[in-house]
């Protein structure tokens, strides 16, 4: 059908009576960098988390390489159930970086990065370590290899988390507000690493409040509001010349915002 890696159709997510995502159609093209912006509670994190099944969509379909995942619970239903093996397969190919880092506190930095390689990819330990060291060098943490995460700053922890996701050689990287829980002076070091990945031509999706960064980083910007894509376009279109009233109101709240 197309060369898109991941495609979602009519994606819906409800938490109880709260209708967070109201039917989203979207495809990730190779090499694309998508910034997803929107107010709090707009559903932007939920949308990202549905792509690697951190949240199971209430309805709608997710296709990986043109193959629809899961199967309907009955012939007439649009609710699907997903076997664990399929979820693992998606998650192995789609890396994720969380707001709260989620490093494993009982493992050293290098063990954190090796973990997925050894348990999921069944790589031998020496090779896994080699790979992990390469990734850690890339994020500038070769000095901290044998340290436990609790000894690192927030910025350093987030860089380890990025290295951990990168080590799996994912085809798509998802960033869920990667700098939101960092002290302001640590934001830069994390954004620099993400910028560097962009320069390598990686396919990435980023949920963020850093609109300035989004402008320079993204090839496409999505403004999410009320559970739908309210406005989609190039950074110039969405961030500088938004058509929709709602987008303008949102952007105006960032008064200090300049490119």
């Amino acid at each position, binding site marked *: 059908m197309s060369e898109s890696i991941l495609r979602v159709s009519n994606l819906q997510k409800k938490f109880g009576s709260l209708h967070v995502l109201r039917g989203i159609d979207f495809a990730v093209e190779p090499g694309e960098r998508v910034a997803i912006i929107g107010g709090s509670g707009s559903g932007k994190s939920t949308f990202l988390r549905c792509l690697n099944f*951190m949240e199971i969509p209430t309805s709608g379909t997710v296709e990986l390489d043109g193959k629809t995942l899961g199967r309907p619970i009955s012939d007439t239903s649009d609710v699907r159930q997903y076997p664990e093996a399929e979820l693992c397969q998606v*998650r192995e190919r789609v890396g994720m970086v969380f707001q709260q880092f989620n490093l494993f506190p*009982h493992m050293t930095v290098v063990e954190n990065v090796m973990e997925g390689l050894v*348990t999921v990819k069944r790589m031998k330990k020496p090779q896994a370590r080699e790979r992990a060291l390469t990734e850690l060098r890339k994020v500038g943490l070769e000095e901290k290899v044998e340290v436990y995460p609790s000894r690192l700053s927030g910025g350093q922890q987030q860089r380890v988390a990025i290295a951990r996701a990168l080590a*799996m050689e994912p085809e798509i990287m998802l960033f869920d507000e990667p700098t939101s829980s960092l002290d302001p002076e640590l934001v830069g070091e994390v954004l620099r690493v993400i910028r560097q990945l962009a320069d390598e031509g990686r396919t990435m999706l980023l949920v963020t409040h850093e609109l300035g960064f989004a402008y320079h980083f993204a090839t496409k910007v999505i403004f999410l509001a009320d559970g739908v894509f309210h406005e989609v376009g190039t950074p110039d279109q969405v961030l500088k010349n938004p058509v929709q009233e709602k987008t303008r109101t949102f952007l105006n709240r960032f008064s200090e915002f300049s490119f």
Partner: protein
Amino acid sequence: MTYQWDFAPVLARFDLLLYGLLNTVKIALISIVLGVAIGLLLAFLRLSPKRILSIPATAFIEFYRNTPPIVHFFWFFYALPVLMNVSLDPFVAAVLALSTQSGAFYAEVFRGGIVSVEQGQWEGAKALGMGRAQLMRRIILPQAFTRMFPPFVERSFELTKTTALASTLAYADLLYQAMMVNSETFRPLEVYTTIALMYVVLLVAASSLARVAEARMTAYR
């Protein structure tokens, strides 16, 4: 108060008390091992999303946690044989009572440890593509284990103290042996004081060991 303390007759039969202490340690260790096995099983059943598994496990746990151990001892020794048409010796009945009862408590210790691991840890592991078994074994259980350890030790101490109830079924534990020594020496004050101190020594020694182990386990914090 002119009572003359005299430990000599008791110390003369100290070998009987040591034998009792040995039996106390034996029954405690066996019941801890079996209790842990029962507790693990119950914890996973209770955590299961299938209600047909979780509800009976919860009922079992709540029943054992909310009834006195001595009732379990007597039930296993006198009532179970009627039901099953077998006869149990005091040791087996006591082990059954201790391990099922502590299994219920251990189950809550294990469950508490597992659910105390932050949601982010589950997500971090899932995002790497780990399956449920890998995630449990590599990420959740190692962290849960260090958190479970203090309540686990506390529970095991409670179990060790509860083994004294086996004496009511005439199992030759420390208390039962003390009763025997008492009936020979008529020195209840000295006998019961001695075994109380033996318990203190046993538990203080065990708790120092536990503290060393805990310090090793939580080194990464």
